[in-house]
């Protein structure tokens, strides 16, 4: 079983929601010093919903795809509902199984999101 599925590779090669938001509500920076992955994420909240969310940064395929898929998922949703997102939701979203070491890559964008909401 590969974790580099077509969907993951597609999001890695063409990440959605990459970039900056000029008038963001909040922005943050997270990193994993062990592998050097860094993500900047910014959010714009309007009427308690995610009006826009974007990320920037360098990371492995898993963390980049996770950021892309997570931002795609949260856009338009109620902020209050997103607080519940956890490791399980990330695995479901990505559709792959990750071991104890690689799961950290997938959780980095989620850590950023939780800092924002």
């Amino acid at each position, binding site marked *: 079983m590969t974790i580099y599925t077509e969907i993951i590779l597609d999001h890695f090669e063409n990440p959605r929601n990459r970039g900056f938001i000029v008038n963001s509500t909040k922005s943050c920076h997270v990193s994993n010093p062990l*592998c050097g992955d860094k993500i900047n994420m910014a959010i714009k909240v309007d009427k308690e919903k995610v009006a826009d969310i974007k990320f920037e940064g360098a990371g*492995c395929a898993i963390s980049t795809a996770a950021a892309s898929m997570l931002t795609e998922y949260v856009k338009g949703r109620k902020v209050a509902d997103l607080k519940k997102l956890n490791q399980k939701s990330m695995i479901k979203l990505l559709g792959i199984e990750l071991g104890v070491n690689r799961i950290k890559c997938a959780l980095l964008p989620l850590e950023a999101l939780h800092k924002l909401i």
Partner: protein
Amino acid sequence: MIDSKKIKKDFPIFDSNPGLVYLDSTATSLKPHSVINKISEYYSKYSSNIFRGVYRISERATEEFEETREVVAKFIGAKSREEIVFTRNTTESINLVAYSLGRQVMREGDEILTTVMEHHSNFVPWQVLTSETGAIFKILDINDDGYLIGDLDRIITNKTKILALTYVSNVLSTINPVKEIIAKAKAINPEIITVVDAAQAVPHMEINVLDLDCDFLVFSSHKMLGPTGVGVLWGKYELLDRMFPFMYGGEMISEVYLDQTKFKKPPHKFEAGTPAIAEVIALKEAIKYLNRIGLQNIRAHEEDVVKYAIDRLGKAFGDKIRIIGPKDLNTRGGIIAFNFEDYHAHDVASILDEDNIAVRAGNHCAMPLHKKLGIAASLRASYYIYNGKEDVDILVSGLKKVQKLL
């Protein structure tokens, strides 16, 4: 010459993981049957504490334990077994010296010299010691080829109390000219205390502590076919004798009174509490195994495989692969750290893992070195006695698959 396919048969992990291409012996080595059996021999035949029992099985355990001390002493050319202290690992051995000797000799304004290529375990203890004592932390730099540079005549002064240096870099693979550096350091400052991190040297080449003329030399059992949980600290007896103990408690005392305690002589002074008995006992089987093959043969085999690997990687990927460290094979060990195109090291390692190839990805506990190299992480494939050229070929195919996928 070493026949790695034959050697693989001595390592049961290859039976339970058919097709495993294990290229991470720098992190920890695999274990042969003889070592595993020795551990179970202790637990099934003479399981008991050492030094305490007057009954037969305890005497047997004590003899087996102390025999390892003798075997280790001979293996590294120490004067006597009293100079061999058992710890948990290399890290603990270095911390022991930093704590017991460092806190005794370091004063404000003194200096410690180490290098930018150290593993964190031979870097952080000294960094902390300098910040606690108000001493100065000096760091030898490297050049683009991964060799140490710097004019020791200007760097080492009569205030430089400690020189802590790795024998072989766990990333660059550089074999440092430790003997020459120590001779030079002692010529400048005869009082300097030299600590050699030999974690990546002892498993792979002949070592003689008297020839090196260092004061301390440390290594881990688990990187040399032995069990986890055992480290070795070799030190010159006069120094061990004069150092503070590291931990206090059972086994390390000779007499305890209400108002004071007398400690044992080295090495027992540094071995408080019940040690990793089974693991220490089994370490000697690892050394016997290494001696049977011969350290010179091991070194020659690794050089041979590394030459083949560098050649194959170069031919297959050209400048898409950037190998870190010296080009001259005489000065490099069995480690090849590299970067591959601009692929993330974790992605490459994960894809290789899908084909049962175990390589390491990350900064390999050497952040200052990676900073110096200007990279966040690297991949590392390391070769040992059970790796042959066929393992190199499989790695090359694996990397081709990575190229296709990413």
